């Protein structure tokens, strides 16, 4: 058994001649919470669907729990919990019957924990799935995925379509569960504040390319946004490399730089600025700054 739960190697996917995934490679170590980020259509769901064997790649390999995605057996699948984007489930089933079906198609079932989740969510057993709200379907989907005690949990944009309260409730439960068991989680979302709260490693997809694959701390260390006040008018160019964005107004310059290091600090110091203050950036700020300009600057 290797120490990697998810392994994606040189993954390429074409749809109707259009490249949606371009040589994507990343690994999710066991026990890691990996946040896969990207705008709508960036290729997050495609990666997850290929990982689960729901569709085949054009080229490249994907392994889940050391098994090639195309050869996942029923036993392997029983070790993986999946919360799908949109929580489609089987719409015409009643909640009770649907739970029974999932229970019968699982390798192990934690009834006590499941009952606790169902009681927390107050899901009506006699209603059909299609009659549930998006929030309720998300909760049911999460409860079903958690009840099988999965070694690997894959959450594909689980909070999409949920209102703020439902999203918060969902995330708090997810965080609680994650912290309790220390399982591996692959979490895709374009709501970056969600990812920032729970992920300890980040993969950023931009137009089918994985531009970043590092820890959240490293990402925040590498991207710096600085407010620099100069004694006189700010210079037009600081002659720095990998500048993501630069705004100048009078003596003030606000600059965002990728791959920050001491050498770049030394270059700024040569201009003898009056002050140089770091502006804290959230994951969302980093994502917006980088994807709107040149995402390749983030590439390691």
């Amino acid at each position, binding site marked *: 058994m290797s120490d990697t739960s998810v392994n994606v190697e040189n993954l390429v996917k074409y749809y109707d001649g259009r490249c949606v995934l371009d040589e994507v490679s990343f690994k999710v170590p066991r026990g890691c919470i990996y946040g896969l980020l990207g705008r709508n259509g960036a290729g997050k769901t495609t990666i997850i669907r290929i990982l689960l064997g729901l569709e085949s790649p054009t080229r490249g390999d994907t392994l889940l729990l050391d098994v090639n995605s195309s050869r996942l*057996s029923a036993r392997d*699948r*029983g070790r*993986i919990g999946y919360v799908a984007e949109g929580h489609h489930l089987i719409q015409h089933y009643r909640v009770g019957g649907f739970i029974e079906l999932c229970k019968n*198609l699982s390798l192990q079932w934690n009834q006590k924990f499941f009952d606790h989740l169902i009681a927390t969510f107050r899901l009506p057993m006699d209603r059909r799935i299609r009659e549930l709200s998006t929030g309720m379907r998300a909760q049911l989907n999460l409860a079903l995925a958690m009840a099988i005690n999965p070694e690997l949990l894959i959450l594909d944009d689980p909070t999409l379509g949920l209102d703020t309260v439902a999203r918060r409730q969902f995330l708090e439960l997810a965080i609680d569960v994650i912290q309790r068991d220390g399982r591996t989680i692959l979490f895709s979302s374009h709501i970056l504040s969600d990812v920032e709260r729970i992920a300890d490693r980040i993969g950023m997809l931009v137009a089918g390319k994985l531009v970043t694959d590092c820890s959240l701390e490293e990402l925040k260390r590498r991207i710096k946004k600085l407010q620099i006040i100069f004694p006189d008018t700010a210079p037009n160019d600081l002659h720095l490399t990998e500048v993501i964005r630069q705004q100048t107004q009078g003596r003030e310059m606000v600059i965002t730089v990728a791959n920050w290091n001491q050498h770049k600090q030394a270059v700024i110091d040569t201009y003898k600025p009056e002050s140089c203050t770091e502006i804290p950036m959230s994951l969302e700020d980093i994502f917006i700054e980088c994807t709107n300009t040149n995402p390749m600057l983030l590439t390691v």
Partner: protein
Amino acid sequence: MLTLIKRELREFGVIFIVAPLILFFAFVITISASTIIHNEVEYNKFPPLGLPENMVTVFQFVVFLLPVISTLFGAGQMYSDRNKKISTFLVTLATDRRRILIAKLIIGVISILASICLFVITDAVLLRIVPRLIPLDTGFITRMISLALVLNLAGYSVGLSMGWGEGRLLRFVGSLLITILLMTIVIYKGLSLETLSILAILALAFFIRTWQRFMSTSL
């Protein structure tokens, strides 16, 4: 596997009620219609049978009606799965595509066998109560039942193969047209061993195509 079979049965179990009902009404309507038309019993000209004309009509009608039901059933199984994304969900649980498809096939084949059994039982009862001119040609009856079975399997496999996709009308009408095409083989070539072989090969080909497609397609 048992869970998947039960799920299929729960979803499509109605076929076990609908098929016998259709069969029953087909018998009643055809016998009534042919009796009204002829007023008196006319014996079929076809030597080996020596049966009343209306019974031959019933046999022919049912032999061709059952595959239509099987085709629609097969197409319904796959169309419903595809459009309700049932396998897309099931395959994320502790099961795989192979088991899902086998569960479908088990229910499909059992429903066909049940219909054929019903057909055979009804025939046996009719043959017992209706007077014959000559002794019964058991070989002919066996060929007819075999043909009904193979034609049903062929129709079912066509339905499975064609049902997987978008556009309900296209799926159902398309599969029915192919089944009707298969029926013309019977009309033109008769109840020969050759006909049985051709239909069996076509049924197998459509089953293999369904298997290959279901195992490799995006869910």
